[in-house]
């Protein structure tokens, strides 16, 4: 068993000098490998066409008082309801502090547009689409929305009042471009 003899060249600081270039080469190659990782991971983030639909403009002109529409935003249902004065009054009459998810109607609408209630149409329990937005659908015991899956009842401000859902229907970011046009997202 022949072995080739070797000698160690050890620098004064204990690190073998000849190893420095090897370490440098491997480190730079490693950095390159990590840099390559970025596009491989980032390509799974939403693509430009998906991000383009992250914002939608909705025309409110056709929605009369007491009516609601369903539309889609980021592939999820949105309820836009034009509250009647009676519905607004019913919402404000409730003591917000007593609610499971305490919020006033004012906190869930915009200044000067208190009649416009814009929420996600996704029940906060397990994600079904509640009834109540379309004509003739059951509005539940509190006159808002009713989720038939497990019996969650939402009031006229889409706040959870009865049933297993933990939170009020989510209010997305939106702003009014004019009295009849709103930008969601």
């Amino acid at each position: 068993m022949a072995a080739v003899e070797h000698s160690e060249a050890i620098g004064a600081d204990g690190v073998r000098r000849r190893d420095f270039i090897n370490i440098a080469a491997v480190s730079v190659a490693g950095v390159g490998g990590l840099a390559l990782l970025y596009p491989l991971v980032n390509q799974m983030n939403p693509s430009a066409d998906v991000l383009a639909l992250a914002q939608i403009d909705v025309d409110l002109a056709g929605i009369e008082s007491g009516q609601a529409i369903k539309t889609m935003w980021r592939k999820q249902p949105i309820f836009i309801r034009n509250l009647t004065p009676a519905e607004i009054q019913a919402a404000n009459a409730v003591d917000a502090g007593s609610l499971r998810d305490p919020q006033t109607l004012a906190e869930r609408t915009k200044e000067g547009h208190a009649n416009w209630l814009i929420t996600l149409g996704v029940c906060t329990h397990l994600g079904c689409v509640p009834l109540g937005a379309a004509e003739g659908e059951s509005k539940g015991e509190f006159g808002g929305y009713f989720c038939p899956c497990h019996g969650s009842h939402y009031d006229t401000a889409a706040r959870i009042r009865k049933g297993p859902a933990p939170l009020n229907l989510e209010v997305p970011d939106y702003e009014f471009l004019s009295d009849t046009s709103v930008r969601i997202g």
Partner: protein
Amino acid sequence: MSFPWAEEYRPKHPFMRWMDDRLPLPRLVYNSVGGGYPVPRNLNNFWNFGVLAGLALTIQIVTGIVLAMHYEPSAANAFGSVEHIMRDVNQGWFLRYLHANGASFFFIVTYIHIFRGLYYGSYKAPREMVWMLGLVIFLLMMATAFMGYVLPWGQMSFWGAKVITGLFGAIPLVGEPIQTWLVGGYAPDQATLTRFFSLHYLLPFVIAGVIILHIWALHIPGSGNPTGVDVKSPQDTVPFHPYYTAKDGFGAGVALIFLAILVFFLPNYLAHADNYIQANPLSTPAHIVPEWYFWPFYAILRAFTIDFILPAKLWGVLAMFGSILLLFFLPWLDKSPVRSGSYRPAFRIFFWILLLDIAVLGYCGGSPAEEPFVMISQVATIYYFAYFLIILPVLSMVERTLPLPNSISESVLHGEKAEAAPYGARPAAAE
């Protein structure tokens, strides 16, 4: 099974030792690509290309998996999904161009790797299995690349699929049913696309498996070397790590520079403009050509223009497949006792002509099927078959070879002219 080396290696680090006792992966790595694999010390740069091929396969698999997250394998939406990748997916254009040019890169390094084998006699005993497994890998690569090119569903994708699947119809008796079975219909369509997508995703992993066998088969006798003389003692070798890991690292850097130039500055240089047009079964492109790496075989296919007992089309198909299948028999066709072309001056001349011949075939394959290209490819095809089936067998029996060095170390340390042994001499103490 037990390997002689299995008992020897003990990792130093306690965690590695714990791992090695339970799953002998550390010693497998050590003995195959680490300090435990002795390699001839005189390998030249042509020995880099096997690793580069492995790198190319890795690039293709990684980019391919990521592209498959966005690609739609439907005849209606495939083309649009590729444009979606190019325009909307984050860095999608980079992944797509890397995958497309990565395929060309894979073939370039593989061809150089094969030519290394042809020149240095790497296919000769005891490495016949390494060679044949390599050919299996090559055939799988060709199938994978062909199917991959169909996926964007451009004009060349569709018409290339039509031509190549049409070749199967040339087989007598069973040709038509086989073609219909392959295509899933009467012409390439949705069914063809989805099955090609499925197989295109699968085959690279089959290739990876065959590569493991290829390397395993190599590591029994060990790597060849430019002299073709066997390793006689440890003096003839150096451990794979760090000698050839460092050399392969450098080689990979150079190769990646070429790949980067292609991907970032010439991404469509090797592509065909017609594949940026959506597939139209009613409109045939002026010239149907496959990707450049298939051009030599395409030239051989189109070289047979006259019926002779069998239809010309069938001769073309037989010759095209035959041109690769004959390579399986190379270890038994070339009976020269000397491995390396460095010591076979007559062989060398014919070999260079072969390289030129294959380049000519490639050029003709990419050209229209008109004169004078057809005649040139006929001459080139004649030489190709003559080289392997007539010239090499005869030459290997009659050629005069140069004297071989006694050992690798001798050839490295002392230079060969000084102490070359006479032809046929074996070292005094055979060990």
